[in-house]
């Protein structure tokens, strides 16, 4: 008998069953493959770090002047150092690298990363070929990372040109490499590997900017970094710990985490739809349930009929989802293995199996609790269809006779929603989730495109354009402030000669040791110094900008971490001297993850070696947008890297804005498709439930069009209520989700809401989708015959 009921029930509601099946299947695919991916990636990261010999801490010295001093300290002074090693690299600027295609030289795209030249065969931070095997390079050959090759559209066999000072070599790209320490763009550094012979030739050039990388193995990385900062090494450029690399590679799990989120949303929606269908079916079969009980069926025996149906449906969905998740998992693991070397590149299918099992268990548990209503149905209440004929509250809903202008379909739609709010709750929640989900990427994109974001990266949004590097091909990277100033002056003159009356503001930055009362901060602090007229764009949350020679402003994170306050005096090591500076103000921005300082241009930094310089602000009168001007300047001055504010922000946040903007349309489409599917499903269920009433309306002369309008307008009311409810939810998601995410970069930012997009266009698109789905589903109204009035409860 159970089989007969099951077969009949599965065939009777084909549409609903197919949609539930699809939801479960897709959710299983997403959840199973994503959980698998996260487990695989997290174990692969540790393996890759060990395999590549990534040290617990590496730090880079500019030049070899402090090499011996550093080695002495590592041998004798530094605590808990198990072993260490060092290797040499040459710093390259963008003009040193060219791509040779069809005999012509083209610019090499470094995407804002610092590029170094290194010789093959290093002891630490090793590089491997794509199969994870060591390789050797012959003279005239070079190996590049996948990111660099893809960015520059290079393939094996292509030629590149590297020049260091007067030494220039044409090299053939022979290998694509996996480089754990320098392979990810997010590290901000990239390596080109050449043969030892070629490397020695480059190194011999007098203009070669030698960089020394020390790799230290220690169990106490944080303490080691603190000790290193306490030393008076002036040439230390940066310090990176293994945990930082691990964190960067964990970004490979972001997509999997997002898919898990989507999977959970799908499961939630599936559960809501399932509950609605279950309650609807039980209400529809009220009498049958009562009769089954009256003839002696136990509660569980009745429940079994319903549970069995959903067990079959859910099991079928998860089995198909599990099968489909296998190739998806393999593809995801394959994409991870493009970036990393894995011990075992196979995906562990047990994870998928367990995930699928958990989904069955969760859904069935939910079904069981949802069928709890069955226990309360007695034979008598079933005969009365659950109604007692008593009412103790005022009737819900509105009165038709009090509406002087409202059309009957519109009234019926509104009244339905008001009298049976709970019935439409599933739809409201689904629509609300969709509206909020669409606001998240929109608000993220708009925030990333905002002026505030540009200022958070210490740039003036009102500048005409920005220039990244201004060194000539024959010059190495600028080391001192005066080099930079001279370079800026030269560029100003060059621009003037071509009719651009521009003023440049350079922002060199230094890593300085800062202490207060003998207590040193955890790491060397990045301190910026604006060299030029344009300074007023920088905001200060408290206090004011440093104006005198003995003043400094520190970011809020630095003050909080060190428990310093405005008005405190701090000791700053500049060159070989220690200067006492007064904290005059505090701010929050994204420089060095929110940990930075700002100095006045009057402070003499001639003796201090720059770590680098930030993008140079170019101010001039122009009618052109930054993008247009950057394009023009690229033509006039191809030797420099011109950019607009948006591209600079994008480079610094890893191109997320661009990816999100590209994802927005497919995501809207996907979301629209999902809610259209749910709307069509629910509307069909409503029509089944209201078959009798529709037939009755037809009998008294209502046209099909009027009845469909009633159904459509009801959905419009539901959408409107959901849209209104989504507004505060969206603001909450901004406050408690987006702001903390942005804060990870080091500062609080005001989430930008563009009302016409967030509350107009995009919800409008979803609304059009919902209405289209309702119009489609209400086509069924035409098929209802007046004879079906008997279906009225």
């Amino acid at each position, binding site marked *: 008998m159970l089989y007969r009921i099951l077969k009949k029930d599965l065939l009777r509601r084909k549409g609903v069953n197919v949609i539930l099946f699809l939801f479960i299947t897709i959710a299983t695919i997403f959840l199973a493959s994503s959980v698998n991916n996260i487990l695989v990636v997290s174990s692969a990261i540790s393996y890759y770090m060990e395999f590549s010999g990534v040290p617990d801490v590496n730090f880079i010295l500019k030049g070899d002047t402090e090499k011996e001093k550093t080695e002495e300290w590592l041998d004798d002074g530094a605590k808990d150092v198990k072993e260490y090693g060092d290797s040499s690299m040459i710093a390259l600027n963008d003009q040193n690298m060219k791509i040779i295609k069809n005999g012509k030289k083209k610019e090499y795209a470094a995407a804002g990363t610092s590029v170094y030249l290194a010789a093959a065969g290093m002891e630490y931070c090793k590089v491997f070929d794509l199969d994870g095997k060591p390789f050797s390079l012959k003279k005239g050959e070079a190996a590049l990372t996948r990111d660099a090759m893809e960015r520059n559209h290079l393939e094996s066999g292509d030629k590149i040109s590297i020049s260091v000072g007067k030494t220039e070599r044409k090299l053939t790209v022979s290998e694509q490499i996996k480089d754990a320490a320098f392979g990810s763009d997010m590290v901000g550094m990239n390596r080109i590997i050449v043969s030892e012979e070629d490397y020695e030739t480059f190194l011999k050039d007098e203009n070669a900017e030698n960089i020394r990388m020390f790799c230290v193995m220690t169990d106490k990385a944080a303490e080691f970094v603190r000790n290193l900062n306490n030393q008076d090494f002036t040439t230390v450029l940066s310090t990176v710990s293994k945990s930082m690399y691990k964190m960067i590679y964990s970004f490979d799990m972001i997509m999997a985490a997002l898919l898990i989120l989507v999977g959970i949303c799908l499961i939630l929606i599936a559960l809501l739809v399932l509950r609605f269908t279950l309650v609807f079916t039980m209400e529809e079969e009220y009498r049958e349930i009562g009769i089954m009980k009256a003839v002696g069926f136990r509660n569980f025996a009745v429940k079994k009929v319903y549970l069995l149906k959903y067990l079959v449906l859910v099991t079928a969905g998860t089995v198909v989802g599990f099968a489909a998740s296998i190739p998806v998992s393999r593809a995801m693991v394959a994409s991870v293995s493009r970036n990393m070397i894995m011990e075992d590149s196979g995906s562990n299918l047990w994870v998928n199996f367990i995930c699928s099992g958990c989904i069955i268990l969760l859904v069935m548990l939910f079904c069981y609790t949802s069928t709890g209503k069955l226990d309360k149905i007695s034979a008598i209440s079933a005969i009365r269809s659950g109604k007692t004929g008593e009412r103790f509250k005022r009737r819900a809903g509105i009165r*038709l*006779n009090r509406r002087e202008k409202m059309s*009957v379909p519109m009234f019926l739609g509104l009244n339905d929603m008001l009298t049976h709010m709970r019935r439409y709750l599933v739809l409201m929640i689904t629509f609300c989730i969709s509206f909020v989900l669409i606001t998240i990427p929109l608000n993220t994109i708009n925030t990333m495109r905002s002026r505030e974001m540009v200022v958070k990266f210490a740039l003036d949004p009102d500048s005409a354009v920005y220039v990244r590097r201004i060194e000539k091909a024959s010059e190495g990277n600028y080391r001192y402030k005066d080099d930079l100033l001279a370079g800026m002056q030269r560029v100003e003159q060059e621009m003037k000669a071509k009719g651009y009356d521009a003023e440049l503001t350079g922002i060199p930055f230094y890593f300085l040791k800062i202490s207060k009362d003998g207590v040193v901060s955890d790491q060397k602090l990045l301190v910026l110094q604006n060299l030029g007229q344009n300074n007023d764009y920088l905001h200060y949350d408290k206090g004011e900008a440093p104006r005198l020679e003995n003043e400094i402003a520190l970011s809020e994170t630095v003050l909080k971490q060190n428990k310093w306050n405005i008005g405190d005096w701090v000791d700053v090591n500049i060159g070989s001297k220690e200067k006492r500076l007064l904290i005059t103000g505090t701010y929050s921005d994204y420089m060095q993850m929110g940990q930075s300082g700002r100095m006045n241009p009057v402070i003499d930094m001639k003796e201090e070696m720059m770590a680098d310089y930030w993008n140079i602000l170019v101010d001039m009168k122009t009618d052109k947008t930054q993008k247009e001007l950057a394009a023009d300047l690229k033509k006039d001055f191809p030797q420099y890297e011109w950019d607009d504010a948006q591209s600079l922000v994008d480079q610094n946040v890893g191109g997320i804005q661009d990816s999100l903007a590209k994802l927005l349309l497919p995501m809207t489409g996907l979301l629209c498709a999902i809610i259209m599917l749910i709307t069509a499903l629910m509307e069909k269920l409503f029509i089944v439930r209201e078959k009798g009433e529709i037939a*009755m309306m037809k009998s008294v*002369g209502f*046209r099909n069009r009027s009845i469909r309008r009633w159904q459509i307008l009801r959905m419009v009311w539901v959408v409107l209520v959901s849209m209104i409810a989504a507004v505060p939810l969206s603001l909450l998601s901004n406050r408690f989700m987006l702001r903390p995410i942005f804060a990870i970069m080091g500062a609080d930012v005001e989430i930008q809401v563009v009302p016409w997009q967030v509350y107009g266009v995009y919800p409008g698109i979803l609304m059009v989708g919902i209405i289209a789905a309702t119009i489609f589903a209400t086509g069924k109204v035409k098929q209802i015959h007046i004879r079906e009035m008997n279906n009225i409860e």
Partner: protein
Amino acid sequence: MESLKVSNLCKTYIIEKRQNNVLRNVNLEIEQGEMVAVMGPSGSGKTTLLYTVSGMDNATAGKVDFFGREMTGLTANEISDMRLEQMGFVFQQMYMLKNLSIYDNIIMPAYQTPAGKTKKGRAAVNERAKILMQKLGISEVADNDINEVSGGQLQRACICRSLINEPKIIFADEPTGALNKQNSIEVMEELNRINLDGTSILLVTHDMKVAARCERVLYIEDGDIREDITLGKWQKDQDMRARERTLNDWLIKLGW
């Protein structure tokens, strides 16, 4: 003038590839202001006849003229408009919208007509609804939900709804089928009164007492009207027993 003229009406259903001729060349005329009952054994085609002549179901063949206008050539929308504005319907089960009060259920069809969409029109509808409810004795349950009133009250509310657009004809399918004796009498008295006011009524019934209140009774068997009997206009003080006896004798003769 004939309010309804049916010529050679046929209705055929196909069930599991088998043809079932429910109506076979039915011919029928109902004069304006006439009250006609259709009787016959179960499955004889009574309800199908009612549904087909009222445009609720399509005829397989034949012609139906409603006040001189041929219905069989009309579009579905034109038939819907005709049902809304010129016809009233009373069914055995009291079909109403669950989410509306009794009063709103009654006025709903009137608000849907072109006249009922204006403020003035709606005021007139409300006035008419109140008079009708008063006449049928259900004013006190106007604001009640449909499951808060008795079957008799609900059927009277259905009659109110059928009259709200001042139809030319009322089609009633077993209007007392779900009511007790007292409620049946009350409902039939209302229908008689409406008929006396000039509205034509075509009703289907199994109940001889109900049929005895009609001016003419048709007997349908195997999809065709076999015979009819004219009992004359019902009068309030008339001897109902004599009408019932006449009808009974006629029905026995027909093998009822």
